[in-house]
């Protein structure tokens, strides 16, 4: 069954996006990316540390195999996000962008007003915008109407491993969306990713849960399998839960007298 993810007209076989942060080394990152089967990897943009120049991380990522998705992490306003976006485009030559505006350093929750403002500007400038948002169905619609390529609601705060705390709101977002819904942030276990996919999410983005596991490479594969299983289950038409039991075995022909 061909069931590709399509974002802005581009097809992907994998429905798992992988973040490159927090890996112990570039080589472990590269192995985990490969094992995950992903085709989209996120990166951040920062000042060059003049005093302490480490390895260039991009040399560990095969640009022919993976689409680089630069993020605007660190931006606290629409203005800062737009500036980072333009720099990222100048650096990669590609116009795909994970838009994130997170002024609050403790929960790192995205600012909806600034995110929408930045999205409107960047869409006009020709960017393919994938906005990271709180699980707000109204905001998701506003962004979709502004021309973003996806919406990326959070499952729980970034890096928290709490899983799908926003489930009810994400269900509404999925129901209303006409762009792909990518559940991003807070997925701590493959079962969390599977749950999102079973609900009908189009893709998930995972970073911390893979990068900080004892065995990142194997965890990357565990997420790959969970995403595939969840997607397959969604397509099989899962049945709703009921309060009472429904027997699986026949309720006739018992070996007893009435």
């Amino acid at each position, binding site marked *: 069954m061909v069931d590709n993810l399509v974002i802005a007209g581009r097809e992907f076989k994998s429905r798992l996006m992988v973040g490159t942060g927090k890996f112990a080394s570039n080589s472990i990152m590269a192995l985990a990316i490969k094992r995950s089967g992903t085709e989209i990897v996120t990166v951040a943009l920062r*000042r060059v540390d003049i005093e302490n120049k480490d390895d260039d991380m991009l040399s560990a990522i095969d640009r022919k195999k993976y689409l680089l998705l630069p993020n605007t992490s660190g931006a606290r306003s629409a203005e800062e996000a737009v500036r980072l976006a333009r720099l990222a485009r100048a650096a990669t030559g590609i116009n795909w962008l994970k838009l994130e505006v997170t002024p609050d350093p403790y929960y790192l929750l995205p600012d909806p007003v600034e995110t929408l403002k930045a999205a409107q500007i960047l869409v006009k400038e020709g960017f393919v915008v994938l906005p990271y948002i709180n699980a707000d169905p109204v905001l998701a619609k506003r962004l979709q109407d502004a021309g973003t390529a996806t919406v990326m609601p959070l499952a729980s705060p970034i890096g928290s491993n709490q899983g799908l705390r926003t489930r009810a709101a994400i269900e509404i977002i999925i129901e209303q969306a006409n762009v792909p819904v990518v559940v991003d942030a807070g997925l701590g276990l493959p079962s969390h990713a599977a749950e999102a996919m079973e609900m009908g999410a189009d893709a998930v983005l995972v970073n911390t849960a893979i990068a900080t596991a004892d065995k990142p490479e194997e965890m990357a594969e565990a997420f790959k399998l969970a995403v595939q299983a969840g997607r397959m289950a969604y397509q099989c038409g899962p049945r709703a839960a009921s309060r009472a039991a429904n027997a699986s075995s026949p309720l006739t022909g018992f070996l007893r007298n009435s």
Partner: protein
Amino acid sequence: MEILKINGVEKKFAAGQMPKTIAELLEQLRVEAATVVAEVDGGIVEREKFAQTKLSKGQSIELVRFVPGG
């Protein structure tokens, strides 16, 4: 004494020693140009223009590159 502000920090050069272009600045700092994007006084300079982009004293230069992130 000539000054350039590089990534928010003032860097002083002896008279005549200030790099003349972005390319020269990167060479002095031993930063590989292929991995960098530059901004001069808030305007992006494309990598192909590093060698032609003249610097003048007092300018504010940002050198950024990709790092791991989610």
